[in-house]
Every structure is written in structure tokens, then in C-alpha cells.
């Protein structure tokens, strides 16, 4: 049997993210649809406790340098793809996927769909749903030429199927020899800054987005957070503008949070933000745009202006 679906594990620092198991689960379904095998590719050796049993084949790239260097990963994954020649490559929209999905599709003359949230087989075609425009629109595309690379939004698929125990066939691809010709080297991985506020432990989070408009205005939401004795968290633009420090950031490149209640003010609900908070028990969103994607995941919503609602909330909590 041939490998039809290849999952790329984004385990750069050794730790395997949830999304890898989500991709394995989806990959199982797709490879069964093709009646072919499911493979996973990992940088380095798997731990004996975790051999990725959902896969039929486990490729280990041996000889990889520690850390992350995009040209080295591109070269190494290219060797694995040449050897396995899968019909479908699944990667997440993390840094590895953003770096390499387009490059690999170009190199192997394949098609590519990005921001994927669903993929099903229909006859011999793959029908893929993607989130575009920050989640404001969905697109449905049809893929009938292969190879196809799908770059999948984390959290789109269940991970349980991908976690089954088992022993896939092992293939080691030694990339060490060719890496010296890669046009880059890995220097180091820097651990996250652990100083400052810890927004991951609180049962209630008061979160603010770009809708707040300015650094001065952040104070308004900070007062509410204080009145509610909850930490203040934020979306990425608030951090990038320097309105709050990095440890306050929720999302893909910030913290993953799962509070009992998440209050979102002036946050649109882009996929990268949702990645960090969509599993909160209760999400309450305030956004003047009734079509903001945040309302797709929120349990309660209001289109009131945050500048009218927040002071009222602060008053009522204080009183």
C-alpha cells in the first residue's frame, strides 16, 4: 500500500501540540477514503510512550539540528515527501505551516488550501472549507489534482481518533548529510517570558481588543477588570501597539486560556484569537459589528458600544 496522507508534526521544541493529533484523526479518515496509508513525519525520534498509533507509518527525520530553521525544515520535509509521495499533506497554520505549506506546494507542483477548517472526500475529489477575511467568510473549494497541501486551523477537528495507541511501521530518513547545503542555520529557541501576569489560571478574564482605540482608553477596561478582580487580557493588536505587555496576549502566539467566563470587548474573533480562548465555558462578546466572527463562538453577545457598556458594568459591579 502507498502512503496517501502525510501529517507534519509541528514538534519543534520536542513537545507535540494537540493539533498534530487533530490532523492524525482527520488524516485517518482521508487516507481510508483513498484506501491508502496514513503517515506522520516527526523531527527526531518519538518517545517510546508515544509512537503515534493512529498512523500506519512514522517517518523520523534524523540528523536535524536543534531549534528551528525554515530552510532546513523545507529541505528535510522535501526529502520525506519525495520518498513517501503522498496525495495529501496536512500541516497546521502554525509557523511551520505558514513557512512551508506554500513552499512545498510550489516545489511539488501541487495545490494548496490554507486556513482549512474542514476537508471531506466526495468521489475522487477533496472538498475543503477555509476561513477567510478573519473568519468573516467561509470558502468551499474543490481539489481534484494531487498532491494537495492543506494548512489547517488548530481546533478544527477532534483529537481523540488521532490519539489511539499502536505501533506504526518506522522509517528513518537521514537528512543530516544534506543539511550543510541548506541556506540557513538554527541558532536557538528562546523560552517564553514568564514574568508578569498569569492569565491562564483565572476563572474570569476581561479581554480587550483593537476596538478600544488607544492606550489611554485601555484604562476604562482595566477599571472593570479591577472591579471584577479579574486579570486583563488582550488580543494581539493591543500588544503590538504597546498598549499592554506581551504576557496579557491571548491566542495563537499568546496564551491559551480556558476560563469559566471570558468577556471580550472590541475583539473581532479572528481565527488566531479564537485559537487561544474558544474552549472557555462561557464567552460573552461586545462588538458593534453584528457580523463579527466572535459571535460565532460566543454564547452571549451584544452590539452595544463598549464605551457605553463598560462604564455601566464597572458601576454595577462596584455598587
Amino acid at each position, binding site marked *: 500500500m502507498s502512503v496517501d496522507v502525510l501529517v507534519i508534526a509541528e514538534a*519543534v521544541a520536542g513537545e507535540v*501540540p494537540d493539533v498534530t493529533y487533530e490532523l492524525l484523526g482527520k488524516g485517518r479518515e482521508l487516507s481510508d477514503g483513498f484506501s491508502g496509508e496514513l503517515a506522520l513525519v516527526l523531527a527526531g525520534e518519538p518517545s517510546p510512550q508515544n509512537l503515534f498509533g493512529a498512523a500506519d507509518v512514522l517517518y523520523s527525520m534524523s540528523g536535524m539540528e536543534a*531549534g528551528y*530553521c*525554515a*530552510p532546513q525544515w523545507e529541505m528535510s520535509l522535501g526529502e520525506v515527501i519525495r520518498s513517501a509521495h503522498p496525495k495529501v499533506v496536512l500541516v497546521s497554520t502554525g*509557523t511551520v505551516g*505558514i*513557512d512551508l*505549506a*506554500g513552499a512545498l*506546494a*510550489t*516545489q511539488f*507542483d*501541487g*495545490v*494548496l488550501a*490554507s*486556513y482549512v477548517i474542514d476537508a471531506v472526500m466526495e468521489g475522487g475529489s477533496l472538498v475543503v472549507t*477555509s*476561513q*477567510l*477575511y*478573519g473568519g468573516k*467568510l*467561509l470558502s*468551499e*473549494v*474543490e*481539489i*481534484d*489534482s494531487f498532491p494537495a497541501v492543506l494548512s489547517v486551523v488548530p481546533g478544527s477537528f477532534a483529537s481523540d481518533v488521532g490519539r489511539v495507541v499502536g505501533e506504526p511501521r518506522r522509517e528513518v530518513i537521514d537528512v543530516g548529510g544534506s543539511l550543510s547545503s541548506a541556506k*540557513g542555520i*538554527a*541558532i536557538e*529557541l*528562546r*523560552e517564553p517570558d514568564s514574568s508578569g501576569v498569569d492569565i491562564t489560571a483565572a*476563572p474570569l478574564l476581561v479581554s480587550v481588543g483593537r476596538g478600544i482605540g488607544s492606550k489611554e482608553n485601555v484604562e476604562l477596561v482595566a477599571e472593570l477588570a479591577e472591579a*471584577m478582580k479579574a486579570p486583563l487580557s488582550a488580543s494581539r493588536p493591543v500588544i*503590538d501597539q504597546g498598549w499592554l505587555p*506581551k504576557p496579557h496576549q491571548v491566542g495563537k*502566539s*499568546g496564551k491559551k486560556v480556558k476560563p*469559566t467566563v471570558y468577556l471580550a470587548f472590541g475583539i473581532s474573533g479572528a481565527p488566531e484569537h479564537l485559537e487561544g480562548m474558544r474552549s472557555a465555558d*462561557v*464567552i460573552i462578546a461586545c462588538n458593534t459589528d453584528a*457580523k463579527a*466572527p466572535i*459571535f*460565532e463562538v*460566543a*454564547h*452571549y*453577545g*451584544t452590539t452595544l458600544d463598549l464605551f457605553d457598556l463598560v462604564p455601566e*458594568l464597572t458601576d*454595577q*459591579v462596584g455598587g
Partner: protein
Amino acid sequence: MRIVVAMRQLADLVEELEVNDEGTDIDREFVKFVSNEWDEAALEEALTLKDELGATVTVVALDEPDVDQTLYAALAKGADRVVKLTGNDPDTWVRSRERAQRLASFLAGESFDLLLTGVQAADDLDGQLAGILGSLLEVPHAAVVVGVEGSDSKVRVIQEMGGGLLGVSELDLPAVLGIQAAKQTPRYAPISRIRQAMQTGEISEHEVELSDASAQVKVRRLYPPESTGAGATMLKGSPKEVAAEIIEIIKSKGLV
């Protein structure tokens, strides 16, 4: 150092986005087009590198609605040269694969050390530009970049790997980088300076003809997620009433 920045126009996400009659693209007639926010970060990083190391900064963009405004603003902020690539239909969706081919065709005749572009654009259905462009040009590339330090033959890049982890690597030049955040928030060009750029500056045009387009996915339909039926219970009433309801919900969870 010679830096090229690839910028593009994109429907303003603050606007209502309608789907066209065929159901396969946004209705482009009435939307406002603005420059992609991550491309603005790429331009800022280029201008910062120019301030630090000395560099020439060329900005290149495809012909898209209101692109002249973005290019004149780039001149006003300190870009040395701005180029508009023509040959595409300015009123259709140019997907990333084709965009990369068009840019690569221009870049084949340019010498550059660094090419910077935004990490993504909101309609990147078939991939993010930096990786595709790097692969087409056969030069090293990296995206989700939050730090760039240049030297003569190499560039040191810091990439966000998720969850706060940063990956540091060194790439040979020339290289293509997808910028996530610049060292500082993008500088502002006063209207008077943009006006001046419009009077004294010049947008050079370069026609690109594509012979064979690369493989792209077929779009069946584009639709708003509301039609999937998920969604929030909307709270109605005055700020006072809604605030009271929200506090009730929080209290019911044993909080506040």
C-alpha cells in the same frame, strides 16, 4: 543593503463584505480597499533597517484599488522607489500563487538582499506569500518574523513559534521574510507629506505578462458563517439592562 517590500491592497475588514452574484468572490464594487496591515509592518521593518544600517527601500505592489495611495504613503514615510506592477485585472481576486508569480517575474530583474512582506493577508486562500515567493525565487525564506537583524551576507531572524516560544535562525542573503510585527508600530505619514509625495514623487510602472499560471484550487462558493447556524444569544436593551444581564450570567457561574 537593498530591500524590496511587497505590499498589497485588501478589502477593509471593518466593512460589510458581500458575496458577488456568482458566489465565488467578494463583491468588489462597493468595498473600501486599504493596504494589508502586515505589509505595513513589513514596510516599517524595512524603514527601520534603513535608519539603522543604511539601505535602499523599494516598494512593489500589484495594480489594485487605491494602490497609488499606499505607494505615495510609502514614499512619504521614506521609501526610495515605488513600483506598480500592471497586467493583472485590478478588480478581480489575485490569489497568492499568481501574486507570487507576478512579483517573481519583476524580481527576476532586480537585485535585492531582503524581500519583506506581511506574514499573511486575510484572503490568502492558497498560501502565504513569503513561502511561495521564496520557493519560486529559490532563496531562503521565513515567516511569522518578529525580529530582523541584518549584516552583509546573512540575516538573523526571530520567529514566533507559538505560545511565546521564539525561534532564532540565520539565513543566507538574499532572503524573503514574512513579517508578523516590526520593531515598532508603523510610523505615520502626515497628509501634507503624502500630498508632497504625490506632487514630487513618481510611481514607476512595470508590466507583467504571465504565460502559465500555477495550480490553484477551484472556489465553489464563498459564504458567511451565519448560514451554519451557530451563534450567540444576543442580549437586548439599554447599556444598563445589558450590563445587569451580563453580571447575572457571571454570578450564576459563582464569579464576581
